[in-house]
């Protein structure tokens, strides 16, 4: 039963991911991206990663997708000029991911799957929180510094330069 729900969400995610990279209109792509993000959140719930699913819905569905929509509204959508690519870049674009996928597939075929560990049942939410704030406390703090740097850097890069007057 859980596997059926997983398959449903996985098919929805893959379908809308294909639609994201094939739609010409960027706004359609954003809406399909929101669909993908919510489907992946459903996949997280079937994998019993409830906190991750909630984070996915809040941060991706509520934050990043809205940010994309704002950016598409700000930059004008009308002037997309699809130029043609030459042959060598085309070959490279298709051959490199195909070779990489082939390598990953061979790795999976050659290696045995890892055996399951521990008892059945849900993951301990408490265990995750304790591990996050003890073993991974330093990366957590570094991540907060990263977010502060991103906040300042994004404002600095995106603001208009009024003093120079060159634009």
């Amino acid at each position, binding site marked *: 039963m859980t596997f059926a729900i997983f398959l449903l969400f996985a098919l929805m995610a893959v379908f809308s991911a294909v639609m994201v990279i094939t739609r010409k209109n960027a706004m359609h792509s954003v809406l399909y991206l929101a669909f*993908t993000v919510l489907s992946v959140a459903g996949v997280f719930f079937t994998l019993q*990663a409830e906190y991750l699913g909630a984070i*996915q819905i809040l941060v991706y569905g509520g934050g990043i997708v809205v940010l994309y929509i704002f950016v598409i509204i700000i*930059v004008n959508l009308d002037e997309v000029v699809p130029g043609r690519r030459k042959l060598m870049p085309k070959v490279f674009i298709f051959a490199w991911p195909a070779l990489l996928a082939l390598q990953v597939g061979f790795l999976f075929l050659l290696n045995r799957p890892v055996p399951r560990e521990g008892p059945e049942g849900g993951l301990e939410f408490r265990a995750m929180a304790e591990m996050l704030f003890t073993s991974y406390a330093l990366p957590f703090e570094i991540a907060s510094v990263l977010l502060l740097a*991103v906040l300042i850097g994004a404002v600095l890069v995106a603001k208009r330069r009024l003093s120079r007057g060159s634009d």
Partner: protein
Amino acid sequence: MVPINAVFALGIALFFLGLFGVLLRKNLVVMLMSLELVLNGINVILAGLGFHLRSPRGSIFAIFVVLMAVAEAAVGFALILSYFRRKKTYDIDKLNELKG
């Protein structure tokens, strides 16, 4: 129960769809969206491994990946806005001043 191979298949499919999107599309905004697809594929694999191995580390690493995705999206949008303000386009074929 969800078999681990199905989780791997979904994660790899999302990863390579995102990779193709980054390489194929010429719209900067859609390229950033494809990057989000790549990071989502990685997150699916991390969550599946955490579920499979009964370890909370999968979720913790995935949370850090989400944090990094947020940082990347914010800086990327700032760069796109700055570039658009200067050039009035977001076609990556015009982004060739350093070509030499």
